């Protein structure tokens, strides 16, 4: 547990027998103190502005999996768009309002996510699943922030070598003759999975289709199913001081 300021032990700071101070109004961790210090210094030294930081925070807050879900739905409905998505993910992203180069405030892409989306097309005989074994690279501009489990050493160690075991923990099992292809995003390419359109969705609108394409489907640990519109159910580790606008 992070050290919390304000819990001063009386013996360390004053005479023996002195009463410890009254409980803190607001307790902050070492991480929170350092974060403030770094940001304030960077701004003081002119490395970036407070406005830059606010704009970036706002940009990140605007990101989520909906554009990617719409890209999948469009690809399901239009074979020509599917071809474009597979051959030029960056160009296809424009059709769902994501400009990998110019949507971010930099106008040269996000520093960490670059501008080379590859859309991986599943077939009945080929299932993709994505990991970054070296860190946690993820296609944020079209899919939003990565989930905690994706960043864990356990996922990064295991998926590339024991994919079927890991997938079964997410509730996904595939026939033995299906090719499970693990895409390890170790350089500048960012991947999203274009899953197979499930049966039972004939005649659906783009919106109805997008609703069943969850973030987990586009990482590849789940497949779309009629009636399933949320990610794999799992516990949520709560924050001590969560974001102010109530987003988790």
């Amino acid at each position, binding site marked *: 547990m992070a050290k919390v300021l304000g819990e001063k032990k009386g013996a360390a700071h004053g005479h023996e027998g002195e009463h410890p101070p009254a409980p803190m109004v607001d307790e902050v961790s070492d991480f929170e103190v350092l974060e403030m210090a770094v940001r304030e210094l960077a701004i003081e030294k002119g490395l970036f502005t407070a406005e830059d930081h606010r704009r970036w925070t706002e940009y990140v807050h605007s990101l989520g999996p909906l554009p990617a879900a719409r890209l999948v739905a469009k690809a399901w409905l239009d074979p020509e768009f599917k071809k474009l998505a597979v051959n030029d993910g960056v160009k296809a992203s424009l059709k769902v309002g994501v400009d990998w180069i110019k949507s971010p405030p930099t106008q040269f892409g996000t520093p960490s996510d670059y501008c080379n989306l590859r859309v991986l097309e599943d077939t009945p005989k080929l299932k993709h699943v994505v990991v970054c074994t070296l860190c946690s690279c993820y296609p944020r501009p079209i899919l939003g922030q990565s989930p905690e489990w994706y960043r864990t050493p356990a996922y990064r160690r295991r998926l590339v070598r024991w994919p079927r075991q890991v997938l079964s923990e997410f509730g996904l099992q595939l026939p033995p003759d299906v090719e*499970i292809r693990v895409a390890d*995003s170790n350089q*500048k390419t960012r991947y999203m999975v274009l899953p197979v359109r499930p049966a039972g969705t004939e005649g659906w609108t783009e919106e109805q289709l997008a609703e069943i394409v969850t973030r987990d489907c586009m990482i590849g640990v789940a497949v779309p199913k009629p009636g399933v519109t949320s990610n794999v159910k799992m516990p949520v580790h709560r924050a001590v001081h969560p974001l102010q606008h109530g987003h988790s």
Partner: protein
Amino acid sequence: MSKVHHDRTHHAKKATGIGDPQCFKGEAGKPKFKAGDSVRIRDLPDFFYTRCQTYTRGVVGTVTLAVYESPAAEDEAWDNTDKPEWFYSVKFRQKDLWPDYPSAYPNDTVETEFSERWLEKA
């Protein structure tokens, strides 16, 4: 003693409106490999930093795509961006990566990217 001057503008100058890795297009010359080529991952020394995963070293795979040009991560990590290389996506059979990969799943694969220096013809 003078302080080192860091040019904070060079990437923005090069990539604004263009994107990264798009901004390195044309700088790596002719690609050595193409889709379909059989390549082996070289086990070069990798102290301090690498983005060529140890689990791939010495394995033979198939190039699926020449993806883009960029400085190798090993150079970009120290802001040495003068010598971009071609990057390739390479696919491996799981049975070639892991001696204990279950034979029940003969078709499983891994696909990942390498800068040209890490590949040799196989």
